[in-house]
């Protein structure tokens, strides 16, 4: 099985799709508190990029981060348990949707601060390479992040020190309700050009197209190249955050744009590359995995409030409690 295996790519996008749909149900059912930023519609990007990575590689994501964690291979059951705030979750229930992390597979975490992942990944990749590994890294971020100074500083640092980081901009057209045209002077690829970082724009709705672009960038980086940027054009099929299911915001996305956007579905596009039998087999397997994940998450114990700050200090420093 190579990273070009269409079945594998389909399994990943299908898994993310159904995971997110189940997670939204659990939000509505009250089992996931605080809501989520669904990755629905953008699955092809995480799937395509992660298909090009090796075991030693690292990535960091965003508030809309479930897809990145799952595509990298985290256990969906422990991921869902995390969203449900259970001790069996990836982060022992301490992180939730926006901080899900699995350091054991190089996922340095979803990150709720827009634009934050670039510098962290740059440092991590540099450190791994100093220790003789062949690591490359991926920093996922949205179109909103390209106006954050911290990310632009990270572009400079990665380019200057030739740290092989693949910057992946998931341009879904909006930062919450702010359209790209209202926020970005110049262009996203132009940001990269300013630092001599090679940039390509790809159709983020086609997982295979994303994979091919990521593969090429990763190969160049592995061969000694510096950072690269991929701007993946995509569309978020659902809300910015599930609170919008309860509180309808004004039509900030025109209805015809939404239907055009939804028409280009990465799961369908990749699914059509499989035989009906293969696709049905993957669908059934994914469903079984998620049934089990939901069972696992909901049957897992909740953390003990007495342990609320257990992991505050890696050094084991004990913080004073807040009571009288």
């Amino acid at each position, binding site marked *: 099985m190579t990273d070009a295996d269409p079945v594998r790519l389909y399994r990943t996008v299908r898994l993310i799709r159904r995971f997110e749909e189940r997670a939204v149900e659990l939000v509505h059912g009250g089992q996931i508190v605080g809501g989520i930023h669904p990755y629905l519609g953008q699955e092809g990007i995480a799937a395509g990029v992660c298909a090009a990575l090796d075991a030693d590689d690292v990535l960091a994501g965003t508030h809309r981060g479930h897809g990145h964690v799952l595509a990298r291979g985290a256990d969906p059951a422990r991921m869902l348990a995390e969203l449900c705030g259970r001790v069996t979750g990836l982060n*022992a229930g301490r992180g939730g949707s926006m901080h899900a992390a699995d350091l054991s597979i190089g996922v340095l975490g979803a990150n709720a*601060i827009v634009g934050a992942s670039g510098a962290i990944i740059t440092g991590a990749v540099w450190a791994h390479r100093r220790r003789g590994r062949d690591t490359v890294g991926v920093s996922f971020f949205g179109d909103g992040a390209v106006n954050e100074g911290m990310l632009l500083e990270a572009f400079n640092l990665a380019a200057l020190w030739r740290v092989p980081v693949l910057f992946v901009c998931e341009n879904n057209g909006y930062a919450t309700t702010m359209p790209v045209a209202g926020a970005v002077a110049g262009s996203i690829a132009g940001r990269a050009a300013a630092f001599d970082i090679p940039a390509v724009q790809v159709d983020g709705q086609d997982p295979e197209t994303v994979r091919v672009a990521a593969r090429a960038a990763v190969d160049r980086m592995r061969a000694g190249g510096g950072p690269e940027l991929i701007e993946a054009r995509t569309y978020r099929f659902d809300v910015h955050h599930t609170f919008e299911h309860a509180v309808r915001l004004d039509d900030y996305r025109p209805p015809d744009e939404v239907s055009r956007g939804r028409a280009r579905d990465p799961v369908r596009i990749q699914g059509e590359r499989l035989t009906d039998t293969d696709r049905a087999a993957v669908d059934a397997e994914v469903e079984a995995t998620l049934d089990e994940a939901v069972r696992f998450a909901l049957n897992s114990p909740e953390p003990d409030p007495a342990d609320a700050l257990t992991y505050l200090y890696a050094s084991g420093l004990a913080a004073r409690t807040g009571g009288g």
Partner: protein
Amino acid sequence: MPRLSYRRALTRALGDELARDDAVFLLGEDVQVGASLVTTGLAKRFGTERVRDTPLSEQAFTSFATGAALAGLRPVIEFQIPSLLFLVFEQIVNHAHKFPLMTGGQCRVPVTYLVPGSGSRTGWAGQHSDHPYSLFAHVGVVTVVPATPADAYGLLVTAIRHDDPVVVFAPAGAMDVRDDVDDLAPVPLGRGRIHRFGEDVTVVAIGHLVHDALAVAEELADQVSVEVFDPRTLYPFDIDGLTESVARTGRLVVFDDGNRSCGMAAEIIASVVERVRLLAPPRRVTRPDGAVLPFAPALDRAVQPGRDQLATAIHLTVKDGP
């Protein structure tokens, strides 16, 4: 006994840790040349790969260090100006500090943030003269403010070996202090030190103010017996050590180069009065609320807590009691 300056003690600590542990590396602005006169000679000794000059990108290089720490290294960042900490408060608090808890204990972030020349440098005015240690204590980042060369060495070494982020404030007012030092050793976090024993009042002095407090104690020696307690670490704070001292003297004055509202002095006083019934109301000598250090030297001095104010506070506290 060899004389050692505070500044050279920091250099020694950095050199010793770079030599001891290959995971340690240093980054910052103009550190290869050693513009702060702290990192002098380290690039020659350890190479420019491990002693790295950065572009002026405080936010990126602070989070770069977080990433490197997540990958197993022990970065030390030198900040040229204490006020730059305001630029990177986000990166330190939201990321470096929060990662261990948010990941459910999957990682550690052993980064040291070294701030040589914190507080007033005299004549550097509003944007170079802050002393924001209380902010880091407030968010729960380990915060140390050594007063002496031996403690500067010992606490910096400990900070670098510590598994969580640590901010090391090296006050401008202490950088040229010299001491006879024969034994350089790590100093544990959260352990204060009594520089002078006394019977009537405990003065808690932070950083360079320890030296001013000692001078005032000496001046007043024939009138009042002053104990000078140097916490050394502000977070975690040696409340047991201080409680022991105040339980003996019954009186407390805090001498703190931070702003008054929500400052360290407020926290120290609250923590003590929760445990000890004092003989007189405690007092604090601090910067004013919302202090911005003005440029003109007389104004710069006027806004910093001074020896006269401390002497007055000591007298009032002693007079107030039984």
